[in-house]
């Protein structure tokens, strides 16, 4: 292992900035976030970065490491190529300072997704089969690191698309609700118009960067595109789905599936 590591860390604010270089002794087993913390503790006490759990569970420390969106806490230094390591903030969101960006866009989109709407709870609780909730569980692994939003070219270089585009993180939220065995809302038209699902041209960048390995494109976006198309243009499929959905929600069905 090399004796020193060199980090090129973007420093600045909304008015601009540049990369600053820091050279530190290497330490065994460290992740990028460890090195950022050591820079804070020694050379640059005010170096801004967001982090919480340092275990890949909270999705706070997203950054672009050597040009690729990654969690700083899950990127081991010894697995990066030799040479200086570049750490920059996510580009799709406005800079607050250094590595910290203003991700409020995502919290605004979250407000626009109609909530889960189940039927009233039966006395003995809801019944759902494991097989019927597994897809939803995959989407609920999302830790809201917003790297899929960061890498999505629809908004990465097109600020003007943001008002009519929900982005991959919320496509899986729509998909989760749409595929929930108990949900009674129909959000497909909303997803087409307000969510801008049609603007996604399935380049799968979101899937590639997802730290939870959620198959965003294959399991959420493409099925949702199909459902939106069905709902909008195909009356026969629309009718068929109505019948299927009704069946799926009954407890008897859940029991059969689970047995």
């Amino acid at each position: 292992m090399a004796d020193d590591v060199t980090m090129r860390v973007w420093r600045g604010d909304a008015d601009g900035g540049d990369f600053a270089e820091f050279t530190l002794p290497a330490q065994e087993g460290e992740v990028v976030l460890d090195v950022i913390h050591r820079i804070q503790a020694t050379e640059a006490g005010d170096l801004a970065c967001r982090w919480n759990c340092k275990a890949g569970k909270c999705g706070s420390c997203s950054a672009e490491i050597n040009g690729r969106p990654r969690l700083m806490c899950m990127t081991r230094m010894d697995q990066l190529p030799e040479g200086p390591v570049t750490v920059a903030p996510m580009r799709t969101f406005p800079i607050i300072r250094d590595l910290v960006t203003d991700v409020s866009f995502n919290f605004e989109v979250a407000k626009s997704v109609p909530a889960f709407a189940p039927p009233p709870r039966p006395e003995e609780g809801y019944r759902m089969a494991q097989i019927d909730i597994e897809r939803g569980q995959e989407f609920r692994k999302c830790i809201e690191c917003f790297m899929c939003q960061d890498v999505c070219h629809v908004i990465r270089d097109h600020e003007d698309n943001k008002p009519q585009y929900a982005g991959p993180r919320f496509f899986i939220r729509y998909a989760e609700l749409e595929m929930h065995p108990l949900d009674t809302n129909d959000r497909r038209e909303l997803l087409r118009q307000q969510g801008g699902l049609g603007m996604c041209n399935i380049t799968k960048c979101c899937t590639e960067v997802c730290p939870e390995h959620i198959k965003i494109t294959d399991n959420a976006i493409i099925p949702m595109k199909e459902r939106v198309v069905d709902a909008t243009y195909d009356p026969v499929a629309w009718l068929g789905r109505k019948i299927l959905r009704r069946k799926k929600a009954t407890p008897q069905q859940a029991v059969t599936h689970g047995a």
Partner: protein
Amino acid sequence: MTEYETHDYDVIVIGAGGAGLRAAIEAKDRGLRTALICKSLLGKAHTVMAEGGVAAAMGNVYAEDSWQVHFRDTMRGGKMLNNWRMAQLHAMESPDRVQELEAWGALFDRTTDGRILQRDFGGHRYARLAHVGDRTGLELIRTLQQRAVAMDIDVFMECKILRLLSDADGVVSGAVGYWRATGEMVVFSARSTVIATGGAGKSWKYTSNSWECTGDGHAMSLWAGADLIDMECVQFHPTGMVWPLSVRGILVTEGVRGDGGVLRNSEGKRFMFEYVADMFRAETAESEEEADRWYEDHSAGRRPPELLPRDEVARAINTEVKSGRGTPHGGVFLDIASRRSAEVIRRRLPSMYHQFMELAGVDITHEPMEVGPTCHYIMGGVRVDAETAAATVPGLFVAGEAAGGMHGSNRLGGNSLSDLLVFGRRAGIGASDFATGRSGQVVPNQAEIDRTVDEALAPFTRDEGENPYQVHHDLQDTMQTLVGIIRTQSELDEALEKLDELTSRASRVAVGGGRSYNPGWNLATDLPAMLTVSRCVTLGARDRRESRGGHTREDFPNADPEFGKVNLVQRQPSGGGMDEEIKIGPEPIPEMPDELKALFEETH
């Protein structure tokens, strides 16, 4: 004078983990003007780290489970130091709280007949933890977050609260803090204030806690004149990662053991059979064969000793390592690879699989993990009324890890998430009722605001001084080495001297840069709470001259029945803030009614 923005609410909730979110949802649902304030972004609070599950006696896997059994397990796990009424309410209400989450969109793992699946955990007689693989905390916080968003609750993110504010009559009336993004000050006036700030583990070096867990709520409540109880009771979770050093302390879920994982020392021996305390002997397996039968069918054998309460397992690991039977990196082996198929491990423990693969290069489906104790949870906290979560100063309500009493001297795994839900809701009700009944204009004390703002900004005015990171580092060293898992009189006395020194150094910290998102300054403003809580833990540890649950004294290795009857209460009688001396003394714990006492006689 520094300018600041102001906001007025009926109820403010400080902290947006499970307890804070649940309290805010309840207050908003009752029609009160409610604000939720959090130090990080919404959904990032430490609740997200909870892995194994939420304990609730729903009886979905073992129909013979009931709130009485859950209550009994909780009290025994806490070595009977718990507030019995909190433990009772918790056991009775947690099934409803879990069901409610499902109505709000949570997707728990299912039984074959479509109900919520429950898993085994340490100290719980029956499989009782509702869960989602090993990411239950994420499911809980996301569900509550989405509920709060749907209810349109006002959320103030990345806002650090420095101090509670009182009015002229001493009623808590809001709080003062700053926006982390800008460093600008902000004052909230409120008819009721809920503290749900979580834990304090960041004062120790090896901890599962995130940077946020600096004991803000414990300290602010004390400074405002509220009582703290049993602060010496700190849980060291038996299984944290020990290698690489940079990730030392990160949690390895108890679910590994619940799902069949066993602990072995460097000689390959399942050593936990040697460490079964008398209190648990009757219900613990005597041989590996018996323990293994239990995993398949709980009536075919008794519980494996790996599933004893956390304090017992942590002490045993500590002893094995100290006796020279540890692993190369100073832990013990946690082995599930030889006991369950790779497919089962990946399905049941997906985030553990990734955590070890990505951080340590260890494939847990093929190799054992190296684990050791890590500072995880503080059982001590603000003394509250069980029914309303009211603290001992009017206008203040406390829920979750910041509150004391519920878990006694040791918390069972899975009882934290249920605690958040049950007492988060109760704090929301208590705060709403108080706010509704409070008349007149709420006027926070101006002098308190001015003093807090001046103190917070002081590090910018010093040209040179202590580095806040260095002070924090030295505090962690002090608490880790002198007030860790095993304590002794001379080390506690030494710790108190060091804390005096560190407090003096903290008053001289200097920071560079501006106020906008400045982590050095943010840390400087976290130090006062960390130092106060560290002092409380040390004072409690010095005065509780016995060993009980999460408090172990080398010089008093046994439980003392007299100490079993008291809480150690700490307070600053005049609410004088950091500079006032902390008074500590024993006060009797509330006595359990006879019908509950009988539950402990019926069994075994």
